[in-house]
């Protein structure tokens, strides 16, 4: 397997009247061909900005890619001209957005919207493109595709619209599919179906996937690796199984305890991470998670070095969260160890994903 995407030391800032917002603050990661990567974090952690940077879809200004490189299939994307970049968008790399209610053009038929990337990138004529559009709707599980092609977005339900969005995204056989919170705006029952669809398409088409979400429960069973992002930085990265089994960053621990589970007692409070998300206009010295971290130490004022937990597992933290002494200290500050809230589950929480965690 070759390397498909390499993001190196990417820094993205938003220029505002009050100063620069450090949305993405020096992140690096790689993606192999056929691999599925999850990027997890709260809103404002820089995960969406990262994905929009790859496609160079950020509004500039106010956004600015200050530093770093994004290499896709041996091309440096940040150095491509706008017209070269257009050949990548929708063709090599496609994207599914969060809100299917607003992401489709209300005045154009679904056919028109699916056919656009087909004709643009595959050079098919009108009738071939129509046939492909039809096949795509069928592939994403929309019944009566011939009739549905002539419909307008408002005639579809939210879940169906997201299926249309997926059909548009895979229309030109992209090598990489970026799904930015693809299920957040949908009903719980529909969420699982959409994830299942993405999983199946990925298997059938051999597409690499970047799945962006704030919900660790979504990536379980969907991805091979996970980057946990906080305040524009990668806090922890590991294989999916490893991350669930052996989380090493206090923030990851917080996210895991925030995953709602079906086996939780009814009426039990959802665990959330106390404190508010970081202010990226005025970033603090050292580790950005300090103000909310139960494990915090004085030396957190310096940014922690990479803690190499395993061959593919890195956490950026001074503390060994598995150390019982550290845990005692954290519990005294209100930390609830995961084993006390039901222990860690390998793989998927019952609510999401039917596919088994694959190893690529």
């Amino acid at each position: 397997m070759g390397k498909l995407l390499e993001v190196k030391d990417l820094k993205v800032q938003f220029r505002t009247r009050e100063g620069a917002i450090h949305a993405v603050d020096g992140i690096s990661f790689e993606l192999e061909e056929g691999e599925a990567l999850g990027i997890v974090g709260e809103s404002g952690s820089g995960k969406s900005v990262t994905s929009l940077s790859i496609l160079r879809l950020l509004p500039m200004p106010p956004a600015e890619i200050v530093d770093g490189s994004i290499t896709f299939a041996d091309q440096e994307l940040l150095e491509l001209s706008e017209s070269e970049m257009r050949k990548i968008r929708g063709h090599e790399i496609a994207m599914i957005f969060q809100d299917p209610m607003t992401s489709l053009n209300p005045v154009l038929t679904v056919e028109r919207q699916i056919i656009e990337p087909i004709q643009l990138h595959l050079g098919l004529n009108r009738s071939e493109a129509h046939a492909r559009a039809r096949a795509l709707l069928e592939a994403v599980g929309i019944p009566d595709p011939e009739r549905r092609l002539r419909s307008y977005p408002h005639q579809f339900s939210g879940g169906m619209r997201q299926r249309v969005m997926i059909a548009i995204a895979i229309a030109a056989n992209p090598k990489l599919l970026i799904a930015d919170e693809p299920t957040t705006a949908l009903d719980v029952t529909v969420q699982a179906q959409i994830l299942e669809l993405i999983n199946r398409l990925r298997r059938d088409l051999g597409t690499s996937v970047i799945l962006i979400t704030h919900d660790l429960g979504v990536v379980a069973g969907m991805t091979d690796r996970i980057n946990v992002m906080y305040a524009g930085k990668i806090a922890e990265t590991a294989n999916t199984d490893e991350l669930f089994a052996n989380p090493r960053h206090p923030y990851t621990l917080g996210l895991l305890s925030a995953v709602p589970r079906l086996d939780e007692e009814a009426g039990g409070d959802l665990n959330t991470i106390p404190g508010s998300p970081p202010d990226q206009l005025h970033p603090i010295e050292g580790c950005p998670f300090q103000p909310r971290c139960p494990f915090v130490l004085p030396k957190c004022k310096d940014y922690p070095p990479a803690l190499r937990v395993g061959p593919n597992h890195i956490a950026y933290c001074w503390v060994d969260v598995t150390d019982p002494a550290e845990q005692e200290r954290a519990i005294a500050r209100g930390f609830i160890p995961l084993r006390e809230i039901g222990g860690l589950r390998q793989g998927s929480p019952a609510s999401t994903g039917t596919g088994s965690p694959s190893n690529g």
Partner: protein
Amino acid sequence: MRRYVIRRLIQAVAMLFVMSIVFFLLIHAIPGGPDRVLFNPKLPPSVRIQLRIQYGLDQPLYIQYWNWISHVLQGNFGDSFVDHQPVMSDIGARAPATIELFVVGLLFALVVAILLGVFSAVRQYSLTDYVVTVLTYFGIAMPVFFFGLVLQEIFAVQLGWFPDLGRASVDQTGFTALEVFEDYALHLVLPVFMFSLLFIAGWSRYLRSSMLDVVKQDYIRTARAKGLSSRIVFFRHALRNALIPLVTQVAIDFGGIAAGAVITETIFAWPGMGQLFLSSLTNRDYPVILAMLTFITASVIIANLIADVLYGVIDPRIRFS
């Protein structure tokens, strides 16, 4: 949708009917009544009484209204008090000139407004955007008749590029077909500029802000993520959506457009219905005033009706609900 159109149609007819009564009463409330207008004061009283009976002016108002409206429904607005011709033939003779000015002016205004609006939205905060914004502010504040006078003076009288008055040369003998067309076209240029200024200014500003709203929408990001060129993104994906509210705005402004035509025709001696309207007011030519008011109101109401239907046609969310 069909039921909606039918309901709006009935409302429109009812409104027009009520307004016709209002106009009729308004005209008959003129101090001194039609007598003063119609009859030479030197006529002997017996002749005047005879004429009153002949014009039906001796009848009570509601009978007069009934007589008038029943003729109107048959397309007969009576005879002008001034030239004693049927009002409909006076209007018919002037309609082509007005329609010419109206259609060309409206299309010109729309095309220029859309181009300026899109352009300044695409290049937001550029020098072009800035210049267009300043010009639209001046255009909106401009007293149109003054603008017309200045256009006429500069481009017709001083520079001689265009004719200053009328719809065509009085004498077209010896003109080839092409020259006749050119003659009409040249006469049209300045009136169209005057007529459309206000609406170019207003609509381009409206479209600019509507475009700026639309390009922030998620579906524009989707379109860009497909790899579409910015030209297609703007013209296929953004403009269609931005034009929807403009349709309403054009309908709201339709009355202003009609009034603009009246003013333009008078400045450029354009032989249309607007001129006829103003002269009928000066002459107190009742039948013509009534016919023109009815006509203008009907066209405003119809324009709004068309805009409502058109709104449904271009916005599928309404068409299918």
